[in-house]
């Protein structure tokens, strides 16, 4: 019985921790010992009943002794019960606002090591609260700098201003074709082919001399994605369509793909997307001498087996990826 009392007192303490002490711990432990006392006095009652009358000379003597003993025991039970009631009023209610509500009752599961549900649940809640807090901080920091590449206005101010049409996102395909063909004519060593394999989004196949081929996926006049492959690599997949997903087999062109993705994020001008496309194509054209130019910083051709793959966004000078800092 004492072992059971110990375990229940441990559980009670754990519950108290979780439930954010609106509970008087002192009174709690006193109440637990009062329960123990009550139980032992009740046991004494039944023991004395079980033992029966003790051996005395007369029958009256025996009965009297028995009755006195019985009364004593019952009175001690009564006392202990009153004590327990008094203490239970002092213990207080557990706080109503415990964070896990009914899931807090999971802590009553005795087999902690086999199903650590409760502790895992607590950790999950703490983690998600922290995540929410950090996400809030991050979004307030990021909102300070506008990262929208399109001229689409959204937000609370939409109610006050007249509804601004996302004009640059919905352009007629003919206009896109015209812009692209004009840019293609600007550079003699770069040829641009336009496809529309999926709906109205244009997909461009840009061939730069005999050096590389790039696939540029557009969304109206905004460049969405680009992938660069070698001149001798296959741009079509098995079913004859343009393969816009597989990476190049060569490390140098995988690096150039990463740089091209950086470039398309760098050149931004929400109101004039055709200027953006022109800048991007000018930047891409600097790769015509990918294998012939040494690095401007270290003067060598190769660094870890790669030629200078980085092109500065303003000056179009060639650097190795590791030399550009």
């Amino acid at each position, binding site marked *: 019985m004492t072992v059971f009392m110990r375990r229940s007192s441990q559980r009670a303490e754990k519950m108290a921790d979780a439930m954010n002490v609106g509970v008087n711990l002192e009174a709690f432990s006193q109440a637990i010992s009062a329960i123990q006392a009550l139980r032992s006095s009740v046991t004494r009652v039944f023991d004395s009943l079980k033992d029966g009358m003790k051996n005395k000379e007369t029958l009256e003597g025996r009965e009297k002794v028995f009755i006195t003993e019985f009364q004593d025991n019952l009175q001690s039970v009564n006392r202990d019960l009153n004590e327990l009631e008094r203490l239970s009023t002092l213990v207080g209610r557990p706080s109503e606002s415990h964070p896990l509500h009914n899931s807090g009752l999971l802590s009553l599961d005795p087999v902690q090591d086999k199903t650590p549900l409760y502790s895992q649940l607590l950790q999950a809640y703490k983690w998600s609260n922290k995540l929410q807090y950090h996400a809030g901080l991050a979004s307030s920091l990021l909102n300070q700098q506008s990262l929208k590449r399109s001229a689409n206005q959204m937000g609370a101010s939409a109610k006050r201003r007249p509804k601004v049409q996302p004009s640059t996102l919905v352009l007629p395909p003919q206009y896109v074709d015209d812009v692209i063909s004009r840019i293609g004519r600007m550079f003699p060593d770069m040829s641009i082919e336009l496809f529309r394999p999926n709906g109205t989004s244009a997909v461009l196949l840009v061939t730069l001399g005999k050096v590389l081929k790039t696939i540029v996926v557009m969304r109206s006049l905004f460049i969405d994605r680009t992938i660069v492959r070698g001149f*001798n690599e296959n741009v079509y997949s098995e079913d004859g369509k343009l393969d816009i997903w597989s990476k190049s087999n060569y490390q140098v062109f995988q690096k150039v793909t990463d740089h091209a993705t950086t470039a398309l994020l760098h050149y931004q001008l929400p109101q004039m997307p055709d200027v953006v496309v022109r800048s991007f194509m000018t930047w891409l054209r600097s790769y015509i001498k990918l*294998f012939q130019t040494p690095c401007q910083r270290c003067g060598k051709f190769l660094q870890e*087996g790669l030629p200078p793959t980085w092109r500065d966004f303003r000056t179009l000078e060639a650097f190795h990826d590791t030399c550009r800092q």
Partner: protein
Amino acid sequence: MLNNILMLLTVILCVLSPLLSVCQVPLAEGKSVQQTIDILHKKLEQLGAVKQGNFTVDCETYHATGNASGQPTKLLYVMHNSETPLSCLALFEGGPCLTADGNFDVLMIKLKSHFQNAKGHKVESRGSRYRYCDFLIKVGAVTMSSSARGISVEVEYCPCVVPGDCWNLMKEFMQSFLGPSIPELPSVFATKPEGLYVPADCVDTMTQYLELFSKVRKQQVLPGTTR
């Protein structure tokens, strides 16, 4: 797959596929062919290259019979490359060349009356194949009728198609593991009308190997190199 450079050392021939040129690269002092090859392997592994199996390039000579007397016999060379295992190349030196599939060897046997195989003149190069970033390096021992004649080193820069664009880049790479003695631009491009700025193909590689092997045939056997 173009822009390979083969170099045969030992005295060595460098085959740069598609560039082939001969340059004198001295053997390490007192070392044999196998030891020099091991030194090269170690240098490549120090650079960071990874071994990717073996390669073989061989060349068989056939004499064309039935020529009018007084004319020099025309020699037909049939070459195989483990890089293109299903094909073989047949060419006359400086003349037309033909790319055929593996059955061409059987055809040559059937043409015994017109083309005789000069068995003692078979030259082959066997060795390991290394990959470093986008470079493919093949270091092999050149043997003619089981006597070691030298070392061939082939360097290929896979992403680039035009040899003229990446020649300097390849020179820098070769210097990093071969030392200062680097071959010149191969002559196979000098004969082309557009020179260096036309995409190379595997015929250029094999032409370079052929020149290399011809030089090997003309060479004397090196003293103390018979296996």
